[in-house]
Structure formats: C-alpha cells, structure tokens
C-alpha cells in the first residue's frame, strides 16, 4: 500500500520582481495560491518540481510545499507559507495590497 502523500503545490520567487509565485496546471507562474496546481501523487510532484526547477530564467528557489485542499482551493499549512501568500503583517504591502489593486 503506498504511503500517504500530503497534497503539495510548487512555489518560488519571480526572478525580476521577487514576488511569491505558484506553478499552475498549464505551466504559468501565478501570484495567487488559488491558481496553483495541487499535486496529490508523489512521483508526479517530483517530476513537476524538476520541470519547474528547469525554468531558472523565470524564478528563483523552487520548492514543494504542503497545502490542504478546501472548497476555496489550496490553503497553506505552515504559517510561513501563509505569510508568503499574504505579505507582511506590519504594513499593508505585498500580495494583500496587490490583490486589492487588482479587485
């Protein structure tokens, strides 16, 4: 029986802006975690990670991170990933402000 595999997404920082980005199912880098491709199979996740790491001219520091799947899409499990998704808590900067601008 295969061991349990916690769902994951692929994340990195954009090379030019440094923004936190997530890999989508159609191979784009999105600023929104809700757009991320959720990987539920370990072999698939490893392959997608290798493919993402090959895109060194677009992103820096590619890695897999655990998520929980919800009706709103993937949600971070660790608080560090929650801050990466949102922005700093002392100032309304980063993604939280960008999201507002887009709305």
């Amino acid at each position, binding site marked *: 029986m295969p061991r349990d595999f916690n769902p994951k997404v692929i994340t990195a920082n954009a*090379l030019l802006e*440094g923004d936190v980005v997530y890999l989508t199912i159609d191979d784009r880098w999105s600023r929104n975690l809700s757009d991320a491709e959720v990987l539920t199979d370990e072999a698939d996740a490893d392959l997608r990670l290798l493919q993402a790491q090959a895109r*060194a001219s677009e992103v820096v520091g590619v890695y897999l991170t655990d998520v929980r799947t919800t009706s709103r899409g993937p949600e971070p499990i*660790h*608080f560090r990933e929650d*801050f990466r998704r949102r922005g*700093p*808590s*002392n100032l309304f900067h*980063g993604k939280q402000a960008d999201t507002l601008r887009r709305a």
Partner: protein
Amino acid sequence: MYQYNDFDADFIRERNRQFRAQVERRIDGSLTEDEFRPLRLMNGLYLQLHAYMLRVAIPYGSLDPAKLRQLAYLAERWDKGYGHFTTRTNIQFNWPKLRDVPDMLDALAEVEMHAIQTSGNTIRNVTSDHFAGAAADELEDPRPVAELIRQWSTDHPEFQFLPRKFKIAVIASENDRAVMKSHDIGLRIVDREGARGFQVWVGGGMGRTPMVAKLLRDFLPRAELLPYLEAVLATYNLIGRRDNKYKARIKITVHENGLDEIRALVEAEFPRRRAAFAGVDQDWLARINAAFVTPRLAERDASPYYAARRADPVFRAWTDTNVTTHKHADYGIVTISLKAYGATPGDASASQMRLVADLAERFGQKDIRVSHAQNLVLPHVALADVPAVHAALREAGLGTANIGLASDIIACPGMDYCALATARSIPVAQGIALRLEELKIEHEVGHLQIKISGCINACGHHHVGHIGILGLDRAGVENYQITLGGDPSATTTIGTRTGPGFAYDEIVPAIERLILTYLDLRDGPEETFLEAYNRLGMAPFKSALYEHADRAYAAE
C-alpha cells in the same frame, strides 16, 4: 565626514558597472542563480520572503543630509516609500526589483554610499558609538579609526572568503554604547601611561552560541592596529572551522582552541604582518582624522531650553529620555525615536528622513547618526534650538519620548520579511509598545531594554536584552522564549532563559507580568529592572511567568 577620493569613486563606479552587467547576464540566462547569488550578496542584494532586499552600508552609522535625502529618494523612487534601519546601523529596502538595483547603486554612489560587504563571509560594516564626537565621556572620536578599518577591509583580497561573517566595533569610552563585546573583534581606544592605543577584545557574538568577547590584548599601540587586525584575521582564516556553518564564527575558534592558544598564534603572526606595513596606513589615518574635525560649536545661551522644560511637561518628558549631555555645555545630543507606539522599530518614511536631514542642516551641524538600537541621532544641537527640533519632530510623528524605556525595542524584521526567520518579531514589538502605552507605565518603569529576534541568529540582540525574546517555530506554531538579565553595556552579560516558551498570543501578557512584578518588587524607583533582577534572581520573575501554568506552552 570622510569624503571619497578619486580611488574610492572609481572603485565604486567599477563595482557598480560590473554588477549591472552581472544582473543583465542573470536576466538573459547567461548566469544561473547559483552563479549569480554570491555576486548579488557581495553587493548587498538578498532575496527575502516576499521580494528582494537591498542592504546599504552606513559606515559607523554616520550620515549627512545629502546621504539621508538620497536614501529617502531611493525609498520613494524604487521602494515603497520607507527604509528600515538595522542593528548594524545599515538601512534595508524591502521591495526593490532586480532590474532597478543597478540604478539604485548608481544613485547611492552619487552620495558616496554603497552596499558592498553588507553580506557574505567578509568583514561587515564597522560600527561605532552613535554619540561619537559629541559624548562627554569619550577619549577621542572613534570614527576615524572605524573609517581606517573600513578602507582596509573593503575588498581586502585575503579576507573575502572567511569561514563566516566578521563584525568589528570601535569605541572610545568606558561606557559601551555599541555592544562592543558582542563583536568578533571589539576595539576600545584607551590611554596607558600617556600613550594612546587599543584594548582588543575577541570572540564575542550572539547567534545560537552567544559569547561575551575575551580580552586578547590589553594594550596595542595605536600605529600597530592594522597589522594586528590582520594577524587576528589571518589566524582565524587559517584555523576557523569551515566544516560546520554553526561553528565557523571566531567565537567558536577562540572557545575551542582557548584564548591563550589564539593569542600565541596571533602574536607569532603579528611581526610578519607588521613588517609588511610601511606606515602608509598611519599617513592615511592622519588624512582621515582631518576629515572628522568636531564642528566648532559657538557658545549659545541655553536658557530657552530650560524655560521650555519648565513650561511644557511634554517637552520636559521628551528631553528627559531623548536628550543626552554633550561635551559642550550649551549643546545636547538628540536621539530621535523610530519607535512610535505601534510602529515598526527602525522604520522611517521618506518624508521623515527628509525632515531629519533638514533639521540636521538647520540645527545639527549637518551630522546624523544611526544607532544600533535602530534610532536616529542629531549629535550636536544647541540646547536653545531643541524646542524647535522637538516641535518639528512631533509634527512628523517622530516625537516619541521613549529612548531607553521599555517601548524602545530592538526587533529584527522577523518572519514578516526575513527568509531565515522562524517567527515574527515586529508584531510582538508593536504589541508590547501598544500595551505599555495603554497602561501608561513605562516612564514609571524607567530604563528597560527589550530585544526581540525572530530566529536563533539573534539579529535582534535578544541575548543582551534585559528582557530578551526569541521567536521559534515549534511544531508549526510560533513560540517565544524569554531570557532575563542580559546586558548590552560595558558589563556585557548573556541573558538566562526563563523556561518554556509562550504562544504568539501569550507573549505580550507574559512581558506585562514581568514588568508588573518588577514594579512590585523593586527597591524604589532608582532600582532598574536589571538591578532588581540581579538582586532578586530568576525565581520571582519565573513565578510571575509560569504560575499561570495553564497559559504556558508546554513545548520547549
């Protein structure tokens, strides 16, 4: 203030040209991130949690109005309108874009600034006393020596790839305002039988293995400084550990080999190094000295200052904490708090920076300092002008009267920005300051230094806080350990851990309990928190923290 000569200007211009080309090659794919990373770090460019971060060196914390205005310009032109002053007296910009960084570096070069050696395993920004040149208790201004060390260490070919980063501080008074004994090398300018030279301290540091520096040489003649520093650095470079990052700082080299062995190795190397110095460095030092002349301060009637103190209790309270005695009786040293209640410690907006630059120009002999406690200082203000300075600062949200008090908190950026952090620091500092303001007790509490780090690297100096707070990740939850009894002054002491840590929502109430316990138990208002702790020991404070056992977090 030291002015760049042609060599300095050419050197910075060439480094900036090289970095611009390196950025272009990274963007066009000619350089991989592994190749580019050490190059960007050599130029102070980090990649943090949400964005790049550019750390700009402010040598020994000294600025003039033109430099500070240029930092304000960078903040507005390429960042989000503010900068963050650090415990190494540098400034960090948290939101630059990679393509813009070469332009930012060129703009810095226009005012003789750069970001070189603000990262990497090199000799970092040399720090000094933020009251240098103004303090009544100093033997001399320590900054010319700091500048000599800066010039010697910048791009020094032998010391670009040390086992680990290396930090030097220089002071010239018994009263240590630069946490000198927490440095890899701490220098104190001293007199011995009519001769001037240095006490050399080695192996201090914070991080995961905090240590107080040990006295390596009680007296080093003035002219022998650079060859002696080279002997120490060369010894460390040779035997410092490169197998384990956590054991690579010189404090571990000293600890593992013993001070006597290190001293013997340094003294054996020293004559060889000394022979290679022809005295040119002393000629340079003479030229540098000439650039640091203490301004000629005219006599000024200080009576308006005392009249304002009598008439205005808000002004009086502010001067009690934020104005320090100057060596000239008609002048004062004004410390500008970057710790407004609820604000991020060390942050200043572009408009605040411009205001401070204007005040320095108008009232402060064009001299501005950054302190390791993340505040700004106007070192030479005529007492008669202090009321006008205070009024302008208040209007800009810079009039907080809390220097040396419990809300004058050092806090690292923590997990709100830093990729290495294990927990947040800034909101904890904000929470404590807001609670103190709510209780209106900090003037009654008096001198109390709270220092917060968001990881074991201890950038927030928590080990030497009277109350230290260390944020950790415990099983995926933020958890805060408390240390008590740390001391950053001349009697440097590493704090002692109280016990199990506290959850994020428990840490501010825990600090409040400590402070209220101190108020209950102190031997009168003259006894500071640190003195009370040293008299009473850990027990009553521990009891105040953990008798709320149901609130204490079990994990250690």
